[in-house]
């Protein structure tokens, strides 16, 4: 049985079933790419994996145990990058990142994380002056600033230029080489060798009914 898996998941949102009977499974080093048309539930599935959303039916399990049993333990494993970048306009780039890293570590990986996404020169710039791409880089830098085995990325390449995309690819590759897992809903090429693909179009409401 895979380390991180979902069984017979049904997601119900806004009065309709988004998908039903969905299965997935990961082992260390694996990558999973979610594809499917808009509204097919890619973001919802990622939020189910974080534990923010509860499935209507089915289970999300880590090593055979439901993630809802020990949410804080699951949170320690997960890094989630959503649509919103969670950058505080009043804090500088370094302060923003130090806060997030400080919740899990004592913050020694903050500078290397800023380097990894090419925003070290912006360390002292307040968040309000960042462009959309720089804010996204800062959000992605959280991935490197503190440990987390499972990266859940929701359209991570939004607003990134080609250089930043290359840095994201490198970060993902080194994470997987260290035995990390990545699940991404993306249309960009993240260079995920040997990644499996999950097409959510096949789990739509008609199949669930």
């Amino acid at each position, binding site marked *: 049985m895979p380390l991180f898996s979902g069984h017979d998941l049904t997601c119900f*949102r806004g009065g309709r079933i988004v998908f039903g009977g969905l299965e997935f499974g990961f082992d260390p080093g694996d990558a999973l790419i979610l594809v499917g048309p808009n509204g097919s539930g890619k973001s919802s599935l990622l939020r189910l994996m*974080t*534990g*923010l*959303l*509860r499935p209507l039916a089915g289970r999300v399990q880590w090593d055979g145990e439901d993630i809802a049993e020990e949410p*804080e*333990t699951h*949170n*320690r494993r*997960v890094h*989630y990058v*959503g*649509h*919103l*970048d*969670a*950058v*505080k306009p*009043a*804090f500088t780039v370094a*302060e923003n990142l130090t*806060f*997030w890293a*400080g*919740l*899990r570590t004592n913050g020694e990986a903050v500078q290397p994380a800023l380097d990894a996404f090419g925003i070290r020169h912006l360390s002292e710039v307040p968040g309000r002056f960042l462009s959309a791409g720089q804010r996204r880089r800062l959000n992605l830098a959280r991935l490197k600033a503190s440990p987390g085995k499972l990266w859940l990325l929701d359209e991570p390449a939004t607003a990134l230029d080609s250089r930043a995309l290359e840095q994201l690819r490198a970060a993902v590759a080194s994470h997987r080489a260290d035995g990390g897992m990545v699940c991404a809903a993306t249309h960009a090429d993240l260079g995920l060798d040997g990644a499996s693909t999950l097409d959510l179009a096949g789990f739509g409401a008609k199949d669930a009914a």
Partner: protein
Amino acid sequence: MSGFMHILRRDLHLSMRQSMDSSMVVAFFIIAVVLFPFGVGPEPNILARISSGVILVAALLASMLSLERLFQTDFEDGSLELLALEPVALEITVAAKITAHWLTTGLPLIIAAPLLAVFMNMPAAGFPILLATLLLGTPTLSLIGAIGAALVLGSRRGGVLLSLLVLPLYIPVLIFAVGAIDAAVGGLPSKPHLLILSALLVTTLPLCPWAGAAAVRQALDT
């Protein structure tokens, strides 16, 4: 505990950068009280009679004014969902944010209150009790208000809804705080009132972070 301090420090740091927010609450408190002598006339006896009620109602409204920001900005910029996904119990996170709210709004109100009491011609016997009631009452207001602030997350016109939800729940604090001051001014023991205020604080202290966290979870589960 380190998670609590980390989030508390961050919220205090943020509100120091945006010190306008805190000072506006105090300014509202002062202006609201100052309006009363203009409205009811400068007769010292009348002002002394209504001083405790006016100061406490104004403090209550000022405290409520800042509640909307408690979770709203973090909710809108995505910080709240990331905080919920950190290895810190959401109840602890909510408790830290409530503490920061009290330190940045409740505490300044307590500091400004004696000045307003002089202004409203409150008898000197009421001063220490006014401070005591505010010290016990304002944390309770922050705690109760946090539930409301979390419940209105994601709704339009949240501020108005928030006041409708929260103000009725503030009534017990108001009754016993005014009762304590009036008792002291009238030469009666105010201890029973203060004990009930303490009881309200001790009851809300464990319950409100828990209920607030449940409401935040509900808001994020969309």
